[in-house]
């Protein structure tokens, strides 16, 4: 009798345990996703992967450069999140709440990350240190109280069409290409120039995608971005054009013997993926996810490059 009466409650208890375990796992998963997305930690991985890609393309020896870039990315992006938390409350309330809740931890974490990045950069010599200090210099320039005219001019760059995204792309390309070169004490070869151009244009495209989401706020604040000035449809056309220019440039570099098979194939696969993403511009409103998908392209590129490299290409 007792076993008959106990069985249903045991079964129910077991089901409840499974459900609570799944719920706990789901909760942890959500938290992990929040931590990765809201803190921009996923960008840290992608930044390191970009440096690895550049090192492979330039045949550079292993160095702390990917780690330095990862630390820098964390410090700069999370530092921005902390600084902009109040403004983000209107456009991204969940992200702003997450950052505000962990403000102290992030503040200490970013300071430690930048400190470690600078210390590691010192090992790479003066050029590596200069590249590492570049984001900090921009940071001071934007926030400087004693150079109001210079600071105002620097802030105004953010409002100028093309220049705003080009400055970000330039800084990114300099860090990704020049830092591993500095560690290896390598020269800026034609291959380095092609890789630099690729990262510059590719970052430019990836910078304009989040601008699609922010176009109303940017228009209200007088910030001239491609979606604000040209509209969504023509922005899509511009992104197509930039990706196609890159395809042509990479093909020419391959033809000229500047790039190897593995690197060319990897980048072209990545650009094909980028063209597919560009197709979604104006056809979706989930530009946040589109931006993350655009950044994730570098994982695809490095996977193809490493796979083909391992296959002997």
């Amino acid at each position, binding site marked *: 009798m007792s076993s008959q009466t106990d069985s249903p409650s045991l079964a129910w208890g077991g089901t409840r345990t499974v459900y609570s375990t799944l719920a706990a796992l789901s909760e942890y998963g959500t938290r992990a996703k929040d931590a990765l997305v809201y803190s921009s930690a996923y960008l840290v991985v992608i930044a390191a992967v970009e440096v690895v890609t550049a090192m492979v393309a330039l045949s550079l020896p292993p160095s702390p450069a990917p780690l330095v870039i990862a630390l820098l990315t964390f*410090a700069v992006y999370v530092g921005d999140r902390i600084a902009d938390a109040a403004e983000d409350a209107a456009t991204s309330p969940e992200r702003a709440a997450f950052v505000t809740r962990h403000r102290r931890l992030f*503040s*200490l974490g*970013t*300071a*430690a990350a*930048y*400190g*470690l990045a*600078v*210390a*590691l950069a*010192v*090992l790479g*010599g*003066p050029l590596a*240190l200069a590249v590492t200090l570049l984001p900090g210099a921009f940071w*001071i320039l934007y926030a400087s*109280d004693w150079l109001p005219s210079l600071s105002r001019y620097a802030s105004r760059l953010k409002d100028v069409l093309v220049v705003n995204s080009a400055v970000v792309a330039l800084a990114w390309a300099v860090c990704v290409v020049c830092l591993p070169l500095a560690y290896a004490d390598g020269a800026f070869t034609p291959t380095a120039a092609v890789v630099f151009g690729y990262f510059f244009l590719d970052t430019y495209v990836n910078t304009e995608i989040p601008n699609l989401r922010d176009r109303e706020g940017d228009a209200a604040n007088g910030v001239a971005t491609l979606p604000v000035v040209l509209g969504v449809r023509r922005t899509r056309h511009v992104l197509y054009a930039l990706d196609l220019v890159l395809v042509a440039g990479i093909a020419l570099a391959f033809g000229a013997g500047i790039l190897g098979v593995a690197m060319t194939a990897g980048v072209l696969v990545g650009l094909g993926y980028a063209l597919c993403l560009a197709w979604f511009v104006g056809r979706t409103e989930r530009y946040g996810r589109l931006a993350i998908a655009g950044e994730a392209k570098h994982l695809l590129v490095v996977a193809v490059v490493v796979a083909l490299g391992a296959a002997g290409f």
Partner: protein
Amino acid sequence: MLLLTALLLVSIAVGTGAAILAWRERPKPGAFPLVALLAAQVWWSTCIVFRLRADTVPAKLQWLHLGWLGVVCVPVAWLCFALEYTGRDRYLRPRYVALLCAVPAATVALVALGGHDLLVVESHTIGANGVVRFEQGGPWYAVVAGYTYLLGLCGVAAIVELVGSDAVAFRGQGVTLLVGLAAPWVTNVAFLLGTFETAGVDPTPIAFAVSGVAYLGAITRYRLLETNPAPRRRARRLVFDGMREGAVVLDTNGNVVDANEYAVDALGITRELVLGEPATRVIPEYERLRDGNTAGHLTLGDGDDARTYDAAVTDVSDVHDRHIGSIVTFHDVSRYVRQRQRLEVLNRVLRHNIRTETNVIHGYAERFGDSDAGRIVQERAARIEAVGEKGRQAVELFERTREEHTGRPLAGILDDCVTRVRESHPDVDVSYDPPPADVVVSSALSAVFDNLIENAARHNEGDERHVTVETRPDAEEVSVVVADDGPGIDAQETDVIRDGGESALRHGSGLGLWIVRWGTEIAGGRAEFDDREPTGTAVTVTVPRLDAPSGE
């Protein structure tokens, strides 16, 4: 060398991290100099790493020279931080900072213009471990070292004050900041004395890693920059200068060492002239005040500008209770003195003049004989005299406000009032239950209960007239309820009293209820007026109990 490089890298990482945290705290006092201090230290460490890793002797020498930029900035930034953080920002005017930077600027110029021989003896040796050792110690090197230690000591003097602060946070900040300074200092002394072998490399910046950790600890644990003592000094000065009372600070010799704006104005001199002068020359009747004779007022100024002050001398002692000076304070009582003079005149007029005039009226009214006109004139003259009497009571009440509350047993006050009313109104039944003898209240209440019981009896009508006086004492207060069964008080009268003011159209009929209110307020209590059923008024006066007068 590997260990040395690793330690220097730790110092760079910690210094950079702490500098970023300090940078985020701008524009709080001390934030920017702390960033400068940490940046200078990071640059110094960085130059040593580059020097150690350079391949050629000229390259090593170049990094040695570039490192001076960090070396000379550290003491200036430290002193600026200590001064700004502790609220001594008046010493940080651009010209003073420029002056502080003179030695660092001269050092950098010396390096840039090639005067290396003053800083570095241009010889080098290569040690067993391959480290190139430069001999430092030219004549300017001694100047820089002395200057660094001097500025370091000045900064310590400012920060030490925090260690003795009452606030735990400031004490913690002070201790961690001193630890942060002591680590590189001790290391540098040990290096200069040759206590440990570092292959000619100054390990001072490595010790700055300890400083960085200390500063980080101060920032995170003791809220360095977040909770800072900078406003305290200025706030105290602001209060001292802005208070509506004159204050002159004297040293042990009786010389003026400080005076606030109010005192300078009152004494009619300038601050520059008063400072350093003996108090006997600056403060009239200072000897009398110093000897503890503060009776009477001090008059400053002449003619219409003369002001009257209450003056006092308060001793100032240090933590060991040693006399280190005194403060003379002046409180302007001119307005109060004038008011008192006016009340004295009013009191005389009410006491003598009205009584004299009404006596004269009485005298002439008697000539009318037993006529109605004569009786009415006498009654009206008596009422004028009563108004004068109430006015005198009111004036006496106001005079009490400047005196200490003298206590008097409530039973005594009520006994007197009830006896007087029973004598003047024998047809009114006054029932009264005396309170315990230990219930003591302000003597200002005599006039209050006089008026209340008198009014309750006088304005009562009918064949049977009753007035009850009931007391309800508790530990802190005592309530006295005076109730009658008369026609009651007009609502407009009590409304005016409750509101506390009259106008031409809205006013009471006399002074009695006002005396009740003012007297109760002076005694620190409150009065409430309630109607009774079927007729009558109950007035409840609730006042605090006072300590029994000494000797009773």
